[in-house]
C-alpha cells in the first residue's frame, strides 16, 4: 500500500469518528478521533496496517487533557499520531493494553502523572512515583500544588 492509499483507507473506515485530519508533512499525520473509537482505530492501524506503536504522550492543555498515540509505518516512512481529547472533569479513555502489550506501562505512567483513567487496563497500579506520594495528586497537571510540607525550594545561600 502507498501512503495515500493508507490514509484514504483510514478516512473511509472511520469517516464519522475523525474530528480533525491534519496532513502536516510527508512524514507526519495527526488524526484526531473520538475517544470511543480509539481502540478500534488503534487496533486497525496496529494489526491491519502493520504499524509499530512507539509511545503515547499525555498533555494538560488549557481546555482539555489529550493523549497522542504515536504509530509509525516504516515501509512508507510515515508517523501517524492519533489524538484524543478528554474532558478535564472526568478524563477517561479505553485502555489499549489488551490489544497492544507495549501500551501497558505508558498507560500506567499517564495514569499516575496526569490522572487519566483507563478502563479495561489489566493492572493499573503505580509505576514510577514514590510510595509516600498521596493518592489523587497528579504532578504533571497544570494546577499541581506542592503537597510536601518538608520540601525545600531554595538553594540555601
Amino acid at each position, binding site marked *: 500500500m502507498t501512503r495515500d492509499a493508507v490514509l484514504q483507507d483510514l478516512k473511509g473506515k472511520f469517516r464519522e469518528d475523525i474530528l480533525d485530519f491534519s496532513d502536516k508533512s510527508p512524514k507526519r499525520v495527526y488524526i484526531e478521533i473520538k475517544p470511543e473509537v480509539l481502540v478500534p482505530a488503534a487496533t486497525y492501524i496496529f494489526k491491519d496496517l502493520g504499524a509499530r506503536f512507539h509511545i503515547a504522550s499525555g498533555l494538560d492543555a488549557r481546555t482539555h487533557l489529550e493523549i497522542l498515540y504515536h504509530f509509525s509505518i516504516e515501509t512508507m516512512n510515515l508517523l501517524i499520531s492519533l489524538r484524543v481529547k478528554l474532558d478535564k472533569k472526568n478524563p477517561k479513555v479505553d485502555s489499549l493494553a489488551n490489544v497492544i502489550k507495549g501500551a501497558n506501562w505508558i498507560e500506567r505512567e499517564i495514569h499516575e502523572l496526569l490522572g487519566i483513567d483507563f478502563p479495561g487496563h489489566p493492572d493499573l497500579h503505580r509505576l514510577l*512515583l*514514590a510510595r*509516600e*506520594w498521596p493518592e489523587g495528586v497528579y*504532578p504533571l497537571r497544570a494546577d*499541581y500544588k*506542592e503537597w*510536601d510540607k*518538608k*520540601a*525545600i*525550594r*531554595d*538553594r*540555601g*545561600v
Partner: protein
Amino acid sequence: MSVTLKALLKSPWVFHLSTGSCNNCDIEILDCLTPRFDIERFGMKLAGSIRHADVLLVTGSCNRKSMVRVKNIYEEQVPKPCVVVAVGECSMSRGMFVHSYNCPMPLDKYIPVDVYIPGCPPKPEAIIAGVVKLITKLKGTL
C-alpha cells in the same frame, strides 16, 4: 591518629553512587581513573561494593525513591568511619531540578556531607582537588 583512620587516608576506597544523575558527573568521575588524571596515585580506587568502601561519592539530584536507598546504604551498610562527598550541582542544591516535584530536599538534609565539589559537571581536576582537601582536613583534625 587511630590505625583505622591512618589506613583509610592512605588508600581511600570510593563507592560511586548515582541518585538519578544525567551521567555527566559519572563520566567525569570515571575520567579521574584514566591514566591522564590517575587518581590511583593518591591510593583511591573505585570499590565494587559499598561494604568495602571508605568514601561514599554521591552524584545526582536526590529524588524521592533513590534517597530511601541512599539512607539505607549510609545508615546500615557502609562501614564506619565513612566520609560523604557530594559531586556536582545536582547533589548539592539539585541544580535545575530545585522545583521538581520529585526532588524535595538536597542531599545534606538526608545525610551529613563532608565535601562539596561544585560544577555541572565538575572537572576531574576539581574532583581530585576536593578529595585531596578532604584528606588534608581529616589529617589535620586528628
